């Protein structure tokens, strides 16, 4: 038996918002793979839950007329990975969430829960940062759209107000079209592991595939929140593909991160990962964008 004081199953998002307003202490639960563990550990023991599990309007992936991809936050990791729209347009994200936990967890854990937990190690986070994802928050006062770069405020903390529900994750066409992207998770095991470091890189190339027109570099676990390395992104713009570019990106990334020492890994080791994963992810992103990465 879980140590839960109150349980409320919401019928839809509006019902969940109302229930959250009524109980200022209530915790929102979606897939449950993080919240139930925290109850078991005692951190959330005796909590009141508002469940948004199984609310159909929050599930699924679709594309709007202008090419914007809309991901329902209650879509499970495995459904994100296996969705045709994700596979065709944003395979980096599908690949990223396919590395969270294990197969059974990916059948219950949701992409929205992964984001709303506010963990820097979330497997979806660095890819969503690179994709400039926009989070749609619905609350008592209406709907607001928050760029994911402004969503995280610290470890486990986000700008989501208590009674707000994440109702959609949007990715605009200009943020995925013509880009190659790759996510690398570094962990000690291949499964059931929390990332020691996550790195997502996207590259858009010139027509002759010789130069980088635009590069995006994002990390999880390189700082208290997921981050983008905007300074090195600006420097990489227009550069010719080759060793000089990789060295610049690897070294530049080091200037923008601030990893910590934890029981999983030391700051020094994480800094090595930051540099090396940037190079590897960039090369793969270039290859996916149709370029010759080792040219």
């Amino acid at each position, binding site marked *: 038996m879980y140590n839960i004081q109150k*349980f409320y199953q919401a019928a839809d998002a509006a019902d969940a918002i109302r229930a959250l307003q009524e109980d200022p202490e209530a915790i929102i639960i979606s897939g449950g*793979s993080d919240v*139930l*563990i925290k109850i*078991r550990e005692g951190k959330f023991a005796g909590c009141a839950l508002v469940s948004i599990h199984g609310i159909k309007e929050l599930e699924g992936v679709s594309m709007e007329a202008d090419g914007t991809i809309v991901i329902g936050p209650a879509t499970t990791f495995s459904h994100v990975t296996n969705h045709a729209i994700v596979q065709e347009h944003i395979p980096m994200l599908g690949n990223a969430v396919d590395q969270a936990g294990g197969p*059974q*967890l990916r*059948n*219950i854990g949701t992409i929205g829960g992964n984001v709303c937990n506010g963990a820097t190690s979330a497997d979806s986070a660095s890819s969503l940062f690179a994709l400039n994802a926009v989070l749609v928050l619905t609350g008592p006062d209406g709907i607001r759209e928050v760029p994911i770069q402004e969503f995280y405020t610290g470890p486990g903390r986000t700008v989501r107000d208590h009674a707000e529900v994440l109702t959609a994750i949007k990715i605009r066409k200009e943020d995925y079209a013509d880009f190659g992207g790759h996510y690398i998770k570094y962990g000690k095991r291949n499964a*059931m592991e929390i990332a020691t470091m996550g790195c997502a890189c996207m590259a858009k190339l010139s027509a002759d595939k010789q130069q980088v027109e635009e590069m995006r570099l994002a990390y999880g676990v390189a700082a208290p929140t997921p981050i983008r390395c905007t300074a090195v992104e600006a420097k990489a713009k227009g550069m010719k593909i080759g060793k000089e570019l990789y060295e610049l990106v690897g070294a530049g990334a080091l200037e923008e991160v601030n990893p910590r020492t934890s029981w999983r890994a030391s700051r020094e080791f994480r800094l090595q990962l930051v540099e090396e994963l940037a190079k590897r992810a960039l090369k793969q992103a270039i290859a996916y964008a149709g370029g010759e990465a080792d040219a």
Partner: protein
Amino acid sequence: MLRIIKMTVNNKEVELAVDDRESLLDTLRNRLGLTSVKKGCEVGECGACTVLVDGEAIDSCIYLAMWAEGRHILTVEGLKGPNGELSQIQQAFVEEAAVQCGFCTPGLIMTAVEIVGTGKRYNREELRKMISGHLCRCTGYENILNAMERIVEEVYSVTSLN
């Protein structure tokens, strides 16, 4: 608080009172007597409690019973034939000696049901990833993979003939 839920368990409709704090694992074991569903780590890491919910393998220890409302649950008890025969998947586990202490076996069998349900052929490396949500503390993974490979091949060759 006790609440009434309706669900389909092993192809039979059941209606029962469950506590809104209990996991599906507790409901299946304690209220329905389905003890093939093992209680292992209780934090979704070992896979011993794996069951299928609407055809997808989940850890029933981190799934609230309340969420099973209206859903189809399948456990190893639901696999047996009309005269108590083993399913093809269970037979493969027996023949490949993929069972040692047996604690992880029911969970692995349910994952195998999910895998063969896709009708796709998977190589050993893919299967390795697909069973990575299960821990076998006897470390009998090689024989488990042999059984998985065998059953995937058997089912694939039959479905591809059709």
